[in-house]
């Protein structure tokens, strides 16, 4: 019944079995083995299932868009849906999420529109959604830096006596960064209402976990900082949700931070520019495909009689609609205004930037004058754009 850790890179002798509530085959785990955590109710599980199916479809769609060359880059979270969906589902609407580049499906699940998620991958702007409306920080690229922001925000909320909790997502590789350690330590010392959820997908680009760290689990590190740590089956959404919710509740109740490690696997490449055949073999990937988080919950729900065919079909339809909306948003060209380059650097405008802005405006005006001269018919939109440019220069 225990996870076949043989094929993972976790030091097999020392690693304990990860906590799980539903096993690979979709059977509930005996309650004596679940460390006091209990299965979420059926309605919750169904909702988690629905969210995972939609997220998977989105992820597959965006990866396809990348393969078609319509998007520059997309770091896929295929296979990691249980971690991502548990993270979002454990939060209240007033809580904050601090995601990384890989966590686009968490954004989707929290209600960010596909077009806004893809703004950065399309190259429209570095980040593209309403942070305060969704209570999601910009996706962080420098590894582990966002964990400190989460601790700071959670601490500010605590100082203001708000009940806000911050949850941050990290990769396994990111836990080697100094900022991860500083964040764990700050959070524990300040008793910040923050939850660290490490998605251990076993690779940092090409580097396997045993070259990343020498201890048996990431969760164990929590001991050293003085906070609870949980080693959880990251492909069991029921367990991930139960543990993450408990950690969020504890944070809200003033009990400080928690470190959670979800043991999962990155099925796709790191990004489209990565060649995973150089550092892992297909057989390993197949083993993990067989531990698919969605199939596992589906088996469980079907065997419990909790998922009807009609329901399954309706969820599949919703997923298709999301994929269609995602494709659709790619056909709409984002309007990028070169002069906006200068608009968000300082709150207080600077004369030197105004000069550079004016220089670019002049260049643009000259360009479009040349274009206009070489076109026979007058393009009214170009003229309008031109006038705006002049007005602002």
């Amino acid at each position, binding site marked *: 019944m225990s996870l076949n850790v043989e094929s993972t890179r976790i030091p097999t002798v020392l690693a304990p079995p990860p906590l799980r509530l539903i096993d690979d085959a979709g059977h509930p785990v005996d309650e004596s083995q679940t460390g006091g955590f209990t299965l979420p109710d059926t309605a919750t599980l169904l909702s988690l299932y629905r969210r995972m199916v939609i997220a998977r479809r989105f992820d597959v769609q965006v990866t396809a868009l990348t393969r078609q060359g319509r998007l520059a880059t997309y770091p896929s979270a295929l296979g990691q849906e249980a971690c991502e969906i548990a993270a979002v589902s454990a939060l209240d609407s007033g809580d904050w999420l601090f995601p990384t580049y890989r966590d686009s499906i968490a954004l989707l699940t929290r209600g960010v529109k596909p077009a806004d998620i893809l703004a950065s991958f399309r190259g429209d*702007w*570095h*980040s*593209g959604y*309403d*942070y*305060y409306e969704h209570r999601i*920080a*910009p996706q962080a690229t*420098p590894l582990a*830096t966002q*964990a*400190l*922001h*989460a*601790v*700071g*925000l*959670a*601490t*500010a*909320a605590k*100082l*203001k006596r708000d009940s*806000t909790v*911050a949850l941050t997502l990290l990769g396994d590789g990111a836990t080697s960064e*100094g*900022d991860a350690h*500083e*964040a764990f*330590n*700050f959070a524990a*010392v300040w008793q910040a209402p923050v939850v660290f959820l490490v998605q251990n997908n076993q690779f940092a680009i090409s580097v396997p976990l045993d070259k990343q760290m020498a201890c048996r689990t990431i969760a164990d590190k929590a001991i050293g900082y003085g906070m609870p740590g949980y080693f959880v089956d990251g492909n069991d959404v029921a367990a991930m949700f139960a543990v993450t919710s408990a950690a969020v509740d504890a944070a809200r109740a003033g009990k400080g931070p928690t470190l959670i490690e979800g043991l999962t696997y990155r099925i796709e490449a790191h990004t489209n520019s990565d060649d995973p055949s150089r550092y892992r073999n297909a057989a390993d990937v197949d083993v993990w495909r067989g531990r698919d988080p969605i199939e596992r919950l589906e088996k469980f729900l079907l065997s419990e009689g909790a998922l009807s065919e009609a329901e399954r079909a309706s969820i599949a339809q919703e997923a298709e609609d999301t994929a269609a909306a995602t494709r659709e948003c790619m056909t709409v060209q984002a309007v990028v205004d070169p002069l*906006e380059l200068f*608009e*968000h*650097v*300082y*709150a*207080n405008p*600077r*004369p*030197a930037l105004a000069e550079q802005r004016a220089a670019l405006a002049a260049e643009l005006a000259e360009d479009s004058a040349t274009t206009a001269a070489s076109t026979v018919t007058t393009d009214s939109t170009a003229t309008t754009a031109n006038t705006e440019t002049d007005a602002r220069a």
Partner: protein
Amino acid sequence: MSHTIAGVATRSPETLTMASALNAAIRDAMTDDPTVVLFGEDVGPLGGVFRVTDGLYAEFGETRVSDSPLAESGIVGTAIGMAMYGMRPVVEMQFDAFSYPAFQQIVSHVAKMRNRTRGKIALPIVIRIPYAGDIGGVEHHSDSSEAYWTSTPGLTVVSPSNPADAYSMLREAIASDDPVIFMEPKSRYWTKAELTLPVTTAPMASAVILREGTDVTLLAYGPTVKTALATAELATAEGLSIEVIDLRSLSPFDDATVSASLRKTSRVAVIHEAAQFGGYGAEVAARLTERNFFYLAAPILRITGFDIPYPSPKLEEYFLPTPDRILAAISRWEWS
């Protein structure tokens, strides 16, 4: 933003060091605005290693003033999250060279957050950095790191040289919605002035002419302002009239004030402690030349520290720009 607070009007003149002026600025800002919080290494009961935060812990309590764990990236990174949640953190990097662990957070996030989020997330953070040498400090306690910050778009970088500016500029920095790197010249912490607080000096972004002159413009900031003034004093004996400008703000750079002075004197020298190669003076010289080439009678000079790591205490007197060295340098210009 108004700096006036209830009760302040009754204050009488007092002799303040730059350190105590900074202390008063933080105290007044915290009294005015409950969202201002202060943290860093040893800033609590000890009051900071330079006592800049003396008494603030006792006055405002642990929720507003706190000793953080010893981790600079952590200090700046958590300040970012706090600012996102509506606070105005003032954080201290204990010494210049110990700000380097926070480089990533400052350059990648503090400086860029407004831009990344198209203006939606503002980070009103002040990062106080005691910097530069001339106090006999051991290794890693005397660096001048300003060029790292000034070449980072998104940051405002300022450095006061006297108690009045220290007070006024720190109040303005804390009230600013842009993140500010506030560089405090350590060697000037004990500089005294008679002040009635609250004092408002020139706006933070402007350079100030401290001494009028007609032959040469000396540009200085922070620790070298005193050196430049001493140079001007010495030069009068030689019949040379030197104008001294305290830049105060390194980024933005006050082109108008400085160019006007250049057009008056036609000779400019920039003085800083930091190494010369790729240093701040290079930017100033290039920038002024581009704008005022035909008004220059001689190339713009840089009198700076050598291009070496900051030396040990017994050698720093050979490293630091001195009035003699400045006078020798400008005497090598061709004077017609």
